[in-house]
């Protein structure tokens, strides 16, 4: 049958109500300045001339006719490529509050069309699940009131740092001290680490801001914050900086930037904080890193040693390695040797039911300096939507199980576990992090939270914005386009980083003080935790409270 061409629809035709966000525009307020259309990262709106027919009937003259008026207005495009992402940049720049995107409360049909040209949906951000996370529901319920004098978070001395790196059994430590043996390197750091976001994933200005902020926290505030680089290599000026000691360099399956790093070792003024070997990440377990071609600018291409404008999908595994002995043991040992056994080396894996196997392998590897486990709520700059939403394992029970496994072996102090993935997802960063600490983590990594809190990232779990993958970040956080990233003032990012860490530092004390803890971070203090969910309480071996 031949389709009726008189009705101009195709299977993929969409109207405003099919889109996730509908742009509301008030013509009576619009000055037609054009700023909204210029700023829209998706080119979802356009300025258009319209004609309106005004029917005219003059009864006395018995004549009929029309008058036409023309007007100018903002219109929303309905194609998939231009669907509004709700970033609200239009309202941010509008001088007259004439425009804003409104979430579509109806089911939006773009979900069925986000695979244009056979390409599944790829995006940035994290698992699109809203509402309180399990971590948000955990309460600190062991309060020292009268059995012990409660501590004063503002006046008592607190020690809130944690240790990164392999720690020896006390007897072995004393033996090596006597005999002059190798004592594995450790770092005393703040337990909230800025997680690995690469040069490439983040814009140069974002990176600069974060580095400035981290240096300020360490040098001025005395909060020993460290930051991970992710898999994008590291600019030479950073490698040769005296602040390299606050940076965790990451090596991942693409080995991007490691030529530069290895060559820079002789010129380094200090050792990096640690080396992170990435085997997996929570947002897209089983997948390698992904930097889409949009973001491979001249600068990034140079840093990573690749041509400009090509997709950079890292393999899911380290290609030269075929087994856990190879990939974990030898690689850790090699990197430890490269840095003269003076830098802690630890792997990062995605949370999974197999995390315990990796952990137990590390327990027997004397060079392993810890284990970072990244849960399903971890963020990413680019991944397939299906990986992000459906693949992975929540962080809480994975960390808890691993910690209990270490306890059974009496090794919980020797191999620190770090947790990541969803810490601060709903803003409760200190509470989430301390809950994980009391479940057994020695510290937590925060990435998405830092982007949101330090640079105003607009992404959320209702799929707002989340276009980090294509380099059109309207805030300039994840873009490599100078026109966009110049919007981000690194000094202001650094200021926010300092504010965030001052606040987390105080909140940690406000959590520890009522528990009667001040001398050491309450790692594994599970008796302080309660949750009003019996099944979760049983699984985590904490109290059920109601």
């Amino acid at each position, binding site marked *: 049958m031949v389709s009726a061409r008189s009705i101009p629809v195709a299977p993929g035709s969409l109207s405003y109500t099919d889109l996730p966000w509908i742009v509301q525009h008030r013509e009576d307020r619009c000055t037609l300045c054009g700023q909204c259309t210029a700023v829209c990262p998706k080119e979802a709106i356009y300025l258009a001339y319209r004609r309106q027919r005004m029917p005219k009937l003059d009864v006395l003259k018995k004549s009929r006719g029309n008058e036409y008026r023309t007007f100018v207005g903002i219109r929303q495009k309905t194609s998939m490529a231009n669907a509004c992402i709700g970033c609200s940049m239009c309202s941010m720049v509008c001088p007259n509050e004439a425009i804003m995107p409104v979430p579509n409360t109806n089911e939006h049909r773009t979900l069925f069309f986000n695979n244009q040209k056979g390409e599944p949906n790829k995006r940035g951000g994290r698992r699109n699940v809203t509402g309180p996370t399990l971590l948000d529901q955990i309460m600190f319920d062991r309060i020292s009131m009268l059995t*012990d004098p409660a501590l004063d978070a503002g006046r*008592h001395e607190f020690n809130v740092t944690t240790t990164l790196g392999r720690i020896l059994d*006390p007897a072995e430590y*004393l033996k090596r001290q006597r005999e002059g043996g190798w004592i594995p390197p450790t770092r005393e750091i703040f337990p909230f680490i800025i997680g690995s976001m690469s040069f490439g994933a983040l814009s140069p200005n974002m990176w600069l801001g974060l580095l400035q902020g981290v240096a300020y926290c360490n040098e001025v505030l005395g909060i020993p914050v460290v930051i991970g680089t992710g898999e994008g290599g590291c600019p030479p000026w950073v490698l040769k900086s005296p602040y390299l000691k606050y940076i965790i360099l990451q090596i991942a399956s693409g080995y991007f930037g490691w030529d530069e790093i290895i060559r820079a070792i002789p010129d380094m003024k200090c050792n990096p904080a640690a080396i992170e070997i990435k085997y997996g990440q929570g947002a897209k377990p089983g997948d390698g890193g992904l930097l889409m071609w949009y973001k491979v600018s001249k600068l990034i291409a140079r840093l990573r040693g690749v041509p400009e404008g090509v997709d950079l999908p890292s393999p899911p595994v380290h290609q030269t390695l075929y087994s856990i002995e190879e990939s974990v043991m030898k690689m850790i040992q090699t990197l430890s040797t490269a840095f003269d056994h003076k830098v802690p080396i630890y792997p990062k894996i995605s949370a999974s039911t197999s995390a315990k196997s990796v952990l137990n392998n590390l327990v027997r590897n004397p060079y392993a300096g810890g284990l970072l486990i990244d849960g399903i709520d971890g963020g990413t700059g680019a991944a397939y939507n299906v990986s992000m939403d459906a693949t992975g394992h929540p962080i809480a029970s994975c960390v808890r199980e691993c910690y209990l496994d270490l306890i059974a072996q*009496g090794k919980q102090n020797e191999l620190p576990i770090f947790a990541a993935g969803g810490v601060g997802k709903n803003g409760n960063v200190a509470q989430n992090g301390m809950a994980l600490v009391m479940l057994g983590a020695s510290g937590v990594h925060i990435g998405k939270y830092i982007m949101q809190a330090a640079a105003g990232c607009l992404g959320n779990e209702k799929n707002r914005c989340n276009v980090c993958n294509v380099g059109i970040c309207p805030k300039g956080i994840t873009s490599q386009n100078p026109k966009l990233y110049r919007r981000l003032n690194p000094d202001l990012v650094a200021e926010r980083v300092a504010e965030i860490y001052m606040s987390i530092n105080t909140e940690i004390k406000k959590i520890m003080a009522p528990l009667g803890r001040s*001398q050491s971070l309450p790692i594994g203090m599970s*008796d302080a935790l309660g949750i009003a969910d019996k099944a979760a309480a049983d699984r985590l071996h904490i109290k059920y409270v109601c």
Partner: protein
Amino acid sequence: MCRLALKTANTAFSPYEVLTAMEAMQEGYDGSGLGLLMRGLEFEDFKYNSKNPILSGIAHTEQAMSRLNSFMEERGFELKYDHEFETIPSLIEAKDRFRYFLRSYRMPDTLKAKSQTEIDEELMLTRLALRADGEEHGGDLTAFSFWPDVAIIKEVGWPLDIGNALTLSDNRIRSRVCMAQGRQNTNYGINLYACHPFIIQGVATMTNGENSAFVPIRDWLLGQHFPGYTGYQSDSEVFAHILHYTLTKLGLPLEAYKHVITPLSTKELDAHPQGEFLKGLRNTCRRLIIDGPNAVIGTLPDETCMLVMDQKKLRPATVGGRDGAWAIASEMCGVDALVPDRDPALDFQPMREHTIIVPPDRKELTIWSQHDPFLLPQAA
């Protein structure tokens, strides 16, 4: 908060003296338990060989007592002395006390031939086996200690009542060291095993205050899979085990205990002559950091006594005395009651960095500050 009292003297004295001191501090406990440890024992009716282990505890039934007898016999321990307490049961709250036992045994010859470590192990395992036996039989047997020259009495009730109930004032038992705790029950049930002092292989401690870091410390000690690191009816038992671990397992001097349970901050260690070593020690013993407030009083097999304050210094303790007799107590009135003939102007209240050591010669106190260096075996 519990009340603690310890007296150490060259001349053996009656434990009743310490109970009198407890009476002076009676505002600080609620009669939920008394623990009493005596070391350097003398008996009126028996010449005791201080190398022989003494078993102390309670048999709650006649069957338990007979099981105890046959168990010790099978294990090869020969009963040398069985102290008969003159008991006045009406003064004891609990009604299931068949017999308080305090007995000296001769070690089997096969054991004597073994190394000291093996002997120590066997004594500990014997105590644990008796404890397990009691637990298997509905708690009808409670074994507090089995160690040379140490006796322990624990009972629920007011300290002086318990002393009267066991007629401790009759001078039939005397000791050179006696430590006692009057318990203020807080978060754990009333349980004989929860009464301080706690002893493991001769190392004994008692504490006041709650141990807020108890669970992570307990988890770590259990992970050592050392048979003696068990129990934990009280959160304070870990203090004894950490001291035992520091001295016996790590072979560190007594001063190191302070660095293990309450390490100095990084800033303080940067200025410490042994800073680098101590930072490493702090890292490796991180799970043993107590997060008091606690004052820990301890005694060692050589009759050394010590007092350590926690980092917050939120618990009281005073030490005072003279050449030959010293007292450590939660309150000054306790010290007054124990050594009245001293110069009170020389009493000392340790601060957070202090460890007080009364050496076995009891001539003078050592007030050791954590900021001072200490001698390490085979210099680290």
